[in-house]
């Protein structure tokens, strides 16, 4: 198999790699905010349960969580996942895991806001919701952007974990070729793919940071 043939074959999996990446971001970013708010809730039960969930999701490997979501239904209810449900299982596992990390980033950002911002808004008559959406959140986004970039870069690389479920994204295809051709080349190609994707991520995120640099 020639190098170009390998690249062409692996590129076919890029769509699925991107699907994992974008769908995970789409669900985990808002979910993370919700989890952060639950974690900071004054309701002790809610905040301790949320905090325990975050602890488990961050304290166990994502690969294990993938396996749990994919095969758990079989051991629990005797339900075997259909092939077309694989992506769903992956997105659920990834979104929960990343939401846990994002939640802690949001929480750090929200808790770092000076109390004076809340007080100024309060005295001017802003409701809690208006204060959060207009005054707090826009500033939090700016503060947490570098930490979010870190997670997003990790996510690009973590998409390769989908090979655990034999989901044919770019890395799983590469692994297959490597086995059948007894070649190391597919791993090199995969490395280049991930690196290029992360260059794009870093570029986009630095653009975002620049767009928010109009104030301090």
């Amino acid at each position, binding site marked *: 198999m020639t190098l170009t043939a390998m690249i062409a074959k692996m590129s076919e999996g890029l769509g699925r790699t991107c699907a994992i990446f974008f769908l995970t971001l789409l669900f985990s970013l808002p979910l993370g905010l919700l989890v952060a708010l639950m974690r900071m809730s004054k309701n002790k039960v809610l905040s301790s349960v949320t905090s325990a969930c975050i602890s488990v999701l961050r304290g166990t490997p994502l690969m294990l969580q993938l396996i749990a979501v994919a095969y758990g239904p079989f051991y629990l209810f005797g339900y075997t996942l259909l092939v077309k449900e694989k992506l769903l299982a992956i997105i659920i596992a990834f979104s929960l895991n990343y939401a846990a990390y994002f939640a802690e980033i949001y929480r750090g950002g929200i808790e770092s806001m000076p109390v004076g*911002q809340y*007080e100024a*808004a*309060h*005295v*001017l*008559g802003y409701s809690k919701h208006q204060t959060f959406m207009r005054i707090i959140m826009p500033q939090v986004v700016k503060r947490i952007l570098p930490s979010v970039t870190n997670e997003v870069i990790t996510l690009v690389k973590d998409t390769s974990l989908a090979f655990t479920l034999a989901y044919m994204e770019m890395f799983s295809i590469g692994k297959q070729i490597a086995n059948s051709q007894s070649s190391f080349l597919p791993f090199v190609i995969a490395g280049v793919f991930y690196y290029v994707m992360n260059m794009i991520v870093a570029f986009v995120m630095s653009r975002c940071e620049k767009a928010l640099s*109009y*104030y*301090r």
Partner: protein
Amino acid sequence: MNILKIAHCRKQFDGKEVLSDISLTVDEGQVVSIIGPSGSGKSTLLRCATLLETMDGGALRYLGKSAVRDENGRAVYASHAELKEIRTCFGLVFQNFNLFPHYSVLKNITEAPMLIQKRNKAEVYETARDLLKKMGLADREDAYPYQLSGGQQQRVSIARALAMKPKMLFFDEPTSALDPELTGEILKVIRDLAAEHMTMVIVTHEMAFARDVSDHVLFMDGGVIVEQGNPEDIINNPSQERTIQFLSRFN
């Protein structure tokens, strides 16, 4: 007619009494200064009056409307809607400005009147620009807070409070975060407001300013009003031992 009436206000922090039986009435057009050492409770009093802190006992009224009433020594707050209404009576200027850093100067001033008071955009912008002109910041409406000096930021925050057309203004040590040069420009703004008969309560460490601008001065220590009255008398000829001691450095 009195704008603000605080009666028998009490406040504890972790069992320690920081305000004990404080009563204060502010009439329309009156300027009241509160002086005293750090930890005397003067800022806490201001925060209770502006509903940022809840008092444990006592009553609070604005323009005759009850925000807090006393029931057997316990403070009972009015409903959420009533408090929202009452909050429009007053404005507060903070020690460290608390401008919204992600908003331009103009947006800092105009958002609340439009969003909260639902006032007409053209009218609010006109009001905001008039206020900025008055504050000597007519050319800075598009600047962001970080681009301004401390004194300019404080003037914007005064404009932000005034844009809500409050019946009275509170100042919580408005010059304590500023160097002496910038302090002067803020004191001048407050003097101008006093000349326009704006009703104000000012917590300050600027004794000469308190004496010159106020109609009434309170000296607080240990959570009580030790002495109050005519500014000249309090600051130049205090009668209480504690006041004399506190002002000895100044006099």
